[in-house]
């Protein structure tokens, strides 16, 4: 397929999925009627379903999906490791401890997000310090991230051991990555920050291309250590913001960049926008699927991405071996 046609098909599919996700749910609203309902103004139930329930949730999925996916792209380039993902640095573990403690003390949603954010930043600082000590080596960073994640998940279980069952359940829901809590104000603020960070990553697209080929190669072409540190922090912030607002949603940052690389090639000029859109749409579709599968229950988006992403990834690996990078 010609590149232009690929882009057109991709964007059309993304827009189509958006409309479908607005329609789908426990009450089906025909796509053709959506413009009419929206222009009719507030009042009818269907308007409230679309604007108050579905839209904020979809927007949240779009923003979180795009952030996680771009964060994955950056980590894979900076660490030169195709298995790196937004949580490589232990961001999710730190956020989980923060959020679990906040929920155990029945704090407000805002404080849960704040503690989760603090926890994830703590994890990043720790992993960064370790790898810095070892001369910023990618392997040290991945290993420190894994070690810290194990420590932190034990800490979460420890908190559970001292917490009343109802709070444990609430915390578990958070850990599974639940988007049903989306509110416009929060989504909008997050969208602004995420867009800025994604835009910043796009400015670094040439750096990312060069970095992917190796440290010494990149150094010889004029990429400084400062550039790499900046990219590390952009990637970590994208992950920390997502995880603190939406919980732990796995596989988006690993799966989407791989698929996009397969479709659009490894050039970050195309890979970053494609992954942003692809990640956004993937999480939106996963969350919608979670809403639809067993009504009236909401399956948290993190579970759907885990299943869908894991299966899809497995098929990809079996079919393509290591060659799809």
């Amino acid at each position, binding site marked *: 397929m010609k590149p232009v046609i690929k882009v057109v098909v991709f964007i059309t599919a993304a827009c189509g999925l958006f409309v479908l996700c607005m329609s789908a749910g426990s009450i089906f609203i025909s796509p053709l009627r959506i413009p009419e309902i929206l222009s009719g103004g507030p009042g009818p139930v269907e308007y409230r379903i679309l604007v108050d329930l579905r839209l904020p949730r979809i927007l949240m999925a779009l923003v979180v999906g795009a952030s996680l996916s771009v964060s994955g792209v950056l980590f894979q380039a900076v660490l*030169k490791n*195709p298995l790196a993902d937004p949580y490589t640095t232990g961001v999710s573990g730190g956020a989980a401890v923060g959020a679990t403690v906040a929920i155990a003390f029945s704090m407000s949603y805002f404080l849960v997000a704040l503690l989760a954010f603090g926890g994830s930043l703590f994890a990043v600082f720790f992993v960064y310090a370790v790898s810095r000590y070892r001369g910023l080596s990618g392997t040290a960073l991945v290993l420190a991230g894994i070690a810290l994640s194990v420590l932190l998940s034990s800490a979460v279980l420890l908190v559970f051991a001292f917490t009343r069952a109802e709070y444990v359940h609430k915390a578990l829901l958070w850990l599974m990555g639940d988007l049903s809590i989306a509110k416009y104000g929060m989504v909008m603020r997050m969208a602004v920050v995420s867009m800025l960070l994604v835009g910043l990553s796009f*400015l*670094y697209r*040439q*750096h990312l*291309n*060069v970095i*992917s*080929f*190796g440290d*010494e*190669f990149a*150094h*010889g*072409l*004029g*990429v*400084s250590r400062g550039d790499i540190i900046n990219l590390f922090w952009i990637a970590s912030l994208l992950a920390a913001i997502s995880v603190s607002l939406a919980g732990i949603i796995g596989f988006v940052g690993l799966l989407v960049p791989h698929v996009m690389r397969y479709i659009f*090639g*490894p*050039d970050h*000029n195309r890979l970053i926008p494609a992954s942003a859109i692809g990640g956004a749409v993937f999480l939106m579709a996963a969350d919608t699927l979670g809403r639809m599968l067993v009504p009236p229950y909401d399956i948290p988006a993190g579970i759907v991405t885990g299943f869908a992403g894991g299966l899809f990834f497995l098929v990809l690996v079996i079919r393509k071996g*290591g*060659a799809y*990078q």
Partner: protein
Amino acid sequence: MNVFTADSLCAGYRNKEVLHDIDLAVDEGEFVAIIGPNGAGKSTLLRLLSGYIAPSKGNIHFMGRPVAAYTRREFSRELSVVPQFVNADLSFTVREFGELGLFPHRKILDIGVSPEGETVDAALDAADISHLRDRRMTEISGGERQLAYIARALVQSSRVMLLDEPVSHLDISHAIRIMDVLHAQNRQGTTVITVLHDVNLAAEYCSRIIALKNGRVFGEGEPRDVLTYENVEGLFDTVCIVTENPVSKRPLVYPVPGFIRGN
């Protein structure tokens, strides 16, 4: 004009010094080969020159200025590096890969197609791989890939090129093609400094040889002065015979099987 000057350089990694008291001067327009046994510190010396690692002692000047005083981008416009290990898993096309060489000359906000496109085509031509321009880096042979690495460095249009074993693992034909490209580039004024395992290629192509052993300069000078049989035997601890290439009149080294010195 000195491109590089270095005095009493020491360097290494994590508590292990690899290079001891190296003095060095490279003039503009030279074609220098760094030779020596495995572990002698050849790659480390190259990394010092490229600024990838810093010396633990001593100074390196590039064009009269300390290497550390250049910004990375500034330095990369003057000096290109072909490292030994490059990630070969990325499916960029050969042309896209060549374009990476424009990186130090580009502004961050430059988008896509640039007027320097001709530079890339000219470099692919010079490396004789224009016919591969739309092939993917993952699909071409090892020799072709090495030519692409060199073309990428040519795109950088720097006055100095550093190469770490550009012809190891290659057949004779590709090795000669690569050395010819470097030779042509050197004739146009580019200073070339390369680590070579093959002493005969060093003898044929280079104007000067620096021989390293155990982290010290074992000998240096024109090929005919450095590649005497005493020197080569001492350098590699291997019995060998040095004659003369009947065509080029350069020294020709061949080993005598079964004799490792000290056995």
